[in-house]
């Protein structure tokens, strides 16, 4: 292969080179952009849970409270017993479990959403520690203290150091957090220590009337799982919790994102590969038309002493160069497209079971959603695969063209007109 001849052929026959280059560029860009779009939605679907460091939120449906007075569990948060939590911890692929106790507190003139959490846990709502706006977050050993959601605190004129009543018990506000910073999944008005929440739930007659809630139980758990096993873990957790289990994972969010995403997710590879195939057809057309144009040049190569291998190597190098250059340009274009896609804001609806507010309260029926920028990005593997595939196609097309070139008889094509 001679590089200066290769360069001259590609440079001085711009229409042909550009046709092949453009076709590969568009094919690879389409393939990778669709992947970026689809991956973006997949990552977006993980975002609400990922923001609190977990992959799965597990709850269980239970009985509807008898009366909406004092502390009670929403019917989507029946107790999860400590032995069940232990079983879940032992499921292969489970890396960590964060335990929480979630309850509503209906008072005469007020309503509170409270979440009990373990601040030492790295999985679950303890991640709120990074969203403290004022004061401090909960600490291990705390008791009868609360952290308030900043919006709730503002609308109720709360200050750090003031006290708030939860079912008659007084809690000192030690800090404010911005819940919106870490998604809507662990949304509550007040955050307290999980042991305080357990004790209050145990003492609540409207909880104990319908639930067998024990001192070490939780009613919502957040699970961090091995990324390759998230869905199998979700299934196993569902088996542990039985038929009333409510398991939320990236898939649950994907399902509520809508049909458009489903179509993109299902057909992105297919459409991308179809586009890529059309690009390869473009490359074949361009290279084979070049062969027709260059019959005399190829005859001349043979006449002046190029072996068949020399000719094949030259033609194959040209095809590979065009395919590879097209793929690299396509990758560049796909990066630009993915950046444009990343500027798109997408709304990820929160499944009803993770919505913190009762639907019968004002604003409670409003669907909640997390709005984020679409995390569309080109991943290394599809990028490497598409470039590799392009080079392979260039090689195959080049070898095919070289094979055809061996049928060119120099004496025939060099005969004077």
């Amino acid at each position, binding site marked *: 292969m001679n590089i200066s*001849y290769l360069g*001259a052929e590609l440079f001085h026959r711009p229409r042909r080179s550009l046709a092949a280059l453009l076709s590969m560029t568009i094919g690879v860009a389409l393939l990778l952009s669709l992947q970026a779009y689809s991956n973006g939605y997949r990552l977006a679907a993980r975002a609400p849970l990922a923001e609190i460091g977990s992959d799965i939120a597990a709850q269980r449906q239970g009985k509807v409270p008898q009366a909406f007075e004092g502390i009670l569990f929403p019917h989507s948060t029946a107790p999860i017993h400590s032995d069940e939590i232990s079983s879940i911890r032992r499921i292969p692929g489970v890396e960590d479990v964060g335990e929480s106790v979630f309850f509503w507190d209906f008072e005469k003139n007020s309503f509170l959403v409270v979440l009990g959490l373990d601040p030492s846990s790295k999985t679950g709502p303890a991640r709120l520690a990074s969203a403290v706006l004022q004061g401090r977050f909960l600490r291990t050993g705390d008791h009868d203290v609360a952290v308030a959601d900043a919006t709730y605190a503002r609308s109720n004129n709360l200050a750090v150091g003031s006290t708030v009543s939860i079912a008659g018990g007084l809690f000192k506000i030690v800090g404010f957090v911005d819940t919106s910073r870490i998604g809507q999944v662990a949304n509550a008005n007040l955050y307290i220590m999980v042991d305080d929440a357990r004790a209050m739930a145990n003492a609540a007659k409207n909880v104990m009337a319908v639930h067998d809630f024990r001192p070490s139980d939780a009613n919502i758990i957040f699970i961090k799982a091995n990324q390759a096993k998230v869905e199998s873990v979700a299934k196993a957790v569902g088996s542990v919790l039985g038929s009333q289990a409510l398991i939320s994972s990236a898939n649950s969010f994907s399902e509520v994102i809508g049909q458009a995403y489903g179509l993109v997710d299902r057909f992105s590879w297919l459409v991308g590969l179809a586009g890529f195939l059309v690009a390869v057809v473009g490359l074949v057309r361009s290279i084979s038309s070049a062969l027709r144009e260059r019959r005399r040049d190829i005859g001349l190569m043979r*006449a002046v*002493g190029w072996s068949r291998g020399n000719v094949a190597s030259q033609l194959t190098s040209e095809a590979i160069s065009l395919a590879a250059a097209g793929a690299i340009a396509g990758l560049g274009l796909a990066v630009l497209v993915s950046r444009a896609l990343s500027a798109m804001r997408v709304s990820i609806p929160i499944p009803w079971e993770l919505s913190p507010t009762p639907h019968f309260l004002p604003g409670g029926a409003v669907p909640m959603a997390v709005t984020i920028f679409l995390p569309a990005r080109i991943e290394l593997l599809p990028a490497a695969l598409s470039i590799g595939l392009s080079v392979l196609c260039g090689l195959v097309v080049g070898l095919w063209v070289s094979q055809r070139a061996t049928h060119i008889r120099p004496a025939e094509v060099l005969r*004077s007109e």
Partner: protein
Amino acid sequence: MNELLKCVDLHKSFGRVDVVRGVNLSLQTGSFSSIMGRSGSGKTTLLHLLSALEAPTSGSISFEGREIGSLNEDQLAMWRREHIGLVFQAFHLIPTLSALENVAFPLYPVRVSAEERSERARARLEQVGLGHRLEHRPSRLSGGEQQRVAIARALINHPTLILADEPTGNLDKKSGEDILDIFGRLNREEGVAVIVVTHDSEVAAVAQHSFTMVDGTLEDGNV
């Protein structure tokens, strides 16, 4: 002088048409010959047989005592590269390459440094009077200049035999004379054997020996 090329009872048929019929030819090293004939007489086909671009239907060709019929296609390509310089009526320059690159073209598959390749091509272009046109592409050269580039290309590997097919056929009288002058000088000064196929008697007159091709047969085949 030694025998350079020898053909014995050479035949070439395309289908049922016998284009070359029983040609016997013996050429000496450093000779200058012409093959004349009308269009369709088989002279170009004979040139293609002599350069091994076509395989004879029967008969044999030996070069410097070596039978070339036994060589495979790649060996024949290498043989051409080492011994034969080809010049065509239509020049057949690569349109995307400069004059210098066109001349160096036969050296591309050879393990020669780019510098040496350029140097050799430059020297050959200067030899044919085109030292000032190194970077010009064929489209920017006149017909006579293009043919001179083609001759320089034919010379790049120091051939012992130049086979030229109607080399002045596409040129005006002055350019044609210049080309014949170059062939004459190469023959006299470098001892390169030349065979020119032509239908122009003035071209044939420059040669030391002239053959005539009539209906596939060669008249006066011994030199």
